[in-house]
């Protein structure tokens, strides 16, 4: 039980993520801003949840991906049954669906951890037999916070704590940019994987066991990613491919898209023509559930 007695009148509760002591009255952890309800739920379930971290560069589509993933689970896609634990768990998917329904992308995720969305879901796959329930915690982190932590470890310790405790990691990469020849997605993914390599430690001959699903987002721009994701990564994200091959024993590659078609408007509110706003005309989900499914099976 994650409860420590301070005195006869006060109890302290350790945060599930950063293990900072918080008073029983706290709603949000004073260290990492994770909801204390995570601890209360895990106590109620009698088990610690599995943390699945969705990481990636700024503007790669983490919020949209995670929002749609949670919504698909809520709608029992592919036989999954998912129960949100706490109303706060629904905020993210509601935010994403509401914005996309209005043909707008959801707002940028701030770097400040107290403004991140957290989701705690109980989920299982209905296979007709009695299957195990998994308690999943999935935070929607800001890409800039991830980048800052990767470049300068301990800038945002909550990210380190999350990655250390993760049962699996979904690494989102901008396939459209990579297919267009930009080296930026490759370098960011390389830095992130290198950070995880350092963090998980191990000798040179020991490979990292934590399952990592590399998700090629925005693959509607480069449909060949769906045909053969591994070949796409080898060709367009070669640095990432090589590091995965050398240092990680459980990596798989997936292509994914959420937006069916995109338009662009210019002008903005002050008539500035240099301001370009992308408009998602409709959603067309493909490849959203598969990476999650793979991670769950590996984490089990």
């Amino acid at each position, binding site marked *: 039980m994650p409860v420590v007695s301070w005195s006869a009148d006060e109890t302290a509760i350790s945060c599930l993520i950063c293990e900072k002591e918080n008073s029983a009255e706290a*709603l949000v952890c004073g260290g990492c*801003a994770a909801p204390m309800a995570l601890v209360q739920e895990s106590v109620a379930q009698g088990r610690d949840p599995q943390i699945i971290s969705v990481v990636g560069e700024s503007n790669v589509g983490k919020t949209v991906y995670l929002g749609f993933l949670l919504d698909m689970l809520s709608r029992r896609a592919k036989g999954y049954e998912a129960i949100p634990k706490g109303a706060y768990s629904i905020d993210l998917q509601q935010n994403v669906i509401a914005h996309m329904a209005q043909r707008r992308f959801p707002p940028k995720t*701030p770097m*400040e951890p107290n403004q991140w969305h957290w989701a705690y879901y109980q989920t299982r796959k209905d296979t007709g037999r009695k299957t195990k329930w998994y308690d999943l915690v999935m935070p929607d982190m800001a890409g*800039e916070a991830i980048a800052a932590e990767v470049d300068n470890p301990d800038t945002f310790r909550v990210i380190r704590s999350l990655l250390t405790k993760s049962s699996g990691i979904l690494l989102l990469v901008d396939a459209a940019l990579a297919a267009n020849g930009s080296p930026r997605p490759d370098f960011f993914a390389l830095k992130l994987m290198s950070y995880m390599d350092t963090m998980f430690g191990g000798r040179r001959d020991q490979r990292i066991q934590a399952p990592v699903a590399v998700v090629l987002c925005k693959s509607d721009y480069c449909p060949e990613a769906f045909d053969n994701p591994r070949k796409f990564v080898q060709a367009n994200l070669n640095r990432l491919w090589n590091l995965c091959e050398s240092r990680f024993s459980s990596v798989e590659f997936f292509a994914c898209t959420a937006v069916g078609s995109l338009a662009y408007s210019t002008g903005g509110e002050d008539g500035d023509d240099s301001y370009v706003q992308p408009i998602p005309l409709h959603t067309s989900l493909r490849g959203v559930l598969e990476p999650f499914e793979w991670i769950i099976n590996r984490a089990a």
Partner: protein
Amino acid sequence: MDHQPGRLGVVADSAVFTSVRTLTSEGYRLVAASPGVTAEERTELRRSSPSHNSLCNDRVDAAAFSAYRLSSGRYCVAHSCSAGAEHTGRGGSRVYTRIAVLDDAAMEAFACDPARVYAALSFASDGVELSLPPELEPVTLDPSVPALGASGGGVDGRPDPCHVARLVTIFLRPRQAVVVAPEAPIATFAAAMAAIPAEHRRTVSCSVGLRFAASREITVTVVPGDEGATRRAIRGHAIEWLDLRDEKAFEGGEHANWARLVQTWIRGGRHRELAAVTDAVDEPLTAGAVFRLASLCDLLDRVQGAPPEASAEFSDELALLGVRTNAERVLADAVAAAVAKNAPVDTQPTDAPTDDADAVGSLVIDDSSIER
């Protein structure tokens, strides 16, 4: 701002934190910094600088301010503003933060007043510049730029004297707090800084106009309104929620006398004199010290409104109070000067007090400006 620059400038390291897209990166980060900003300082600046949706309001002219001490011992003062629409087209405005990092000597040039540094930084800024080289030149700040709001009116309006006095009590007994200041928060902060001694200003860790974020590790967060999310975030932690409009929350307290004095003098337009007295205070404001200073200020006020025949009484009272500190000496000298001025005509000095920068020597004002 209508200000003629002084001859001397204070050089400070500078940095810019905002969201831009470059060849190698995208999003909020430290896009430029002068070489003197160390790696450890840069890490803290990244953690403490505001990102998307951090400004308390979405207006085009929204501005915010933060000041805190870095673990290196240097002091950071940052000016944040809105810089157009967020560049990835996801709504909201881009937050642009211009940062100055000062050592103790540089802060001394501003009398350790972060509000004055903020004013100088705003004055020195060329506005929003998104195409910056990674390496910046240090910024030269003019200490003669007056603090925005310290003299009655500021960038966001005129502060309420009651609110200034209440904010002063928070800084005199530092504790973690979210403070609601609905009217002219930056001007209120500037006026409060002028009403606390330099020793207390040195330790100020505060943001004004930024949403609360525990990751910033700032002691006092001043916001314009009540936000449910903030209340949730601080519940169960040793962080107070204080509303400057709530009279009951500030009743009593060890600095009540000083707060009353601050409120009276600000209401009377005696900002310069208040600043002169606080600048003369060179030791922590204990309850006893505050009581003595407030007693001397009260005596000064009574002298200035009294008939000449009461002069001897005031001299006796002054002698009874005695003088222990530099600030008390300053006030005692002012009381003595006021007594002498009030004395019968044949005993008055021939030189009238001049309205010069040394307001301490002329703490005698027109009685009609004081609200009783």
